[in-house]
């Protein structure tokens, strides 16, 4: 990628993260996950897609299309919602992470 992209790439990767949602006590349910953007690191603020919260809405998905619905407070979701965020550290270092199965993904030869 051209020079113009070097700093843009670093900034994009520094701001990127992945968000996963699961149900407390039901590890087999979900997880639901998506990508996100780190808006602030202290305090930690992340903006991500709202689709992963649909299964947790107390009032059901219809609340998303209620006339004029522009925002819903965080307690619109059930108490068993568990959220985790992962991102790349600013500094390089040995790989962390635990070897996990790769459900549903494979690499067929072309």
């Amino acid at each position, binding site marked *: 990628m051209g020079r113009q992209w070097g700093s843009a790439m670093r*900034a994009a990767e520094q*701001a990127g993260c992945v968000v996963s949602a699961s149900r407390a006590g039901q590890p087999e349910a979900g997880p639901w996950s*998506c*990508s996100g953007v780190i808006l602030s690191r202290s305090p930690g*603020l*992340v903006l991500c897609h709202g*689709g992963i919260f649909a299964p947790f809405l107390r009032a059901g998905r219809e609340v998303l299309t209620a006339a004029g619905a522009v925002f*819903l407070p965080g307690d619109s979701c059930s108490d068993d919602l568990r959220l985790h965020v992962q991102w*790349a550290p600013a500094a390089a270092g040995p790989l962390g992470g635990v070897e996990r199965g*790769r459900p549903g993904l494979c690499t067929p030869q072309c």
Partner: protein
Amino acid sequence: AGLEPSPPASYRRRLQQPPLPAELLLLLSCPAFWAHFARLFGDETAEQWRFASVAPDDEVPEDEEEDQLRLLGWFALLGVRLGQEEAEEERGPAVAVAPLGAVSKGAPLLVCGSPFGAFCPDIFLNTLSRGVLSNVAGPLLLTDARCLPGTEGGGVFTARPAGTLVALVAAPLCWKSREWVGLTLLCAAAPLLRAVRAALGRLFPSTAALAAHLPLEVGVPWGLPLREPGPPWAAAAVLVECGSVWGSGVAVAPRLVVTCRHVSPREAARVLVHSTPLKSVAVWGRVVFATQETCPYDIAVVSLEEDLEDVPIPVPAEHFHEGEAVSVVGFGVFGQACGPSVTSGILSAVVQVDGTPVMLQTTCAVHGGSSGGPLFSNRSGNLLGIVTSNTRDNSTGATYPHLNFSIPITVLQPALQHYSQTHDLGGLRELDRAAEPVRVVWRLQRPLAEAPRSKL
């Protein structure tokens, strides 16, 4: 002397923190995004569109499909509980936000998302994809950067100023009438963050203070008129309406537009030509020439009753360089609902017959409605050709928007110039006498190396 035993191999692709606990502060949507979404996707053609991770032929219950549409424009603000160590270490550059309208159509974009979300972060975390801003309808943006399921919510950044946040991914995959469109639906970041600020202020007093930590908008001050969409040459693309059929075209002289024969097939037919909607000028014209049905060059020429104002006349290219960066500008996908889309790629092939280019192929995303639109060189801005078609595999029915065909402008330019100067159609009529090898090429057959010799 042997080297020190190396530490156990460990790939260093995606370094990551252990997952950090987070809490949902609020869910929010951008009303203007919905308004434009309804305008572009919500009319009678709504059932043709699919924005899902599942392929269009996978059966999805109707209510679930409606759910997916509902969810498209919703985003969430999370509070992440950082330990002391992460808080101190994680001091990366703060994100800056591009105001709505600050990034013009055709500008390069970088998308950073994690395909398949949390399934494989050590492999896919923060994967990059590159494209251009293809179209803009208020806060609803389109890019031809290719994204996969799981990248929803990922950030979309500009190259300059480095890493300025433009948008978030709303739907990574779009299908229309079962054709993969190859475009990604985005929601502009500036209006989203304004909605976050407004919501934080109205929620609990404790969260109002968080608004001070949200990134600020930089660049073109808010409120200036939206910048002229796209690179200067993109404005040469026009919408051509011929009865109930519409397609794209390109102005090659103030009163001369070239489009495809299958857009306006009949000579003497009246057509209406619209320049880019920001000018919303429509001019009547008449088809003065259309190639025969048997001609491999799918071309028609429209003479206008008055000049097209403010439409730049592109410079025709004289040479083609395979691999060069190119752009297609066409009204595919959205047609009259908003301005032309810009998609980027490279000139993937120049097919020649007897040393003369007779067909161009590109990797840009080309959709129904883009026929007749211009193909430009990004480097020179010169007009390279007229887009005529993309590719469908008849055995599977699959359409490939990223393999498409254009007529080199060098085939047309001499005849167009002659007609412009003399109003004599002789040069254009010559196109109907294209040689057999050219016909073979446009029938997508292998050009015969040489006529098979008789054995007698």
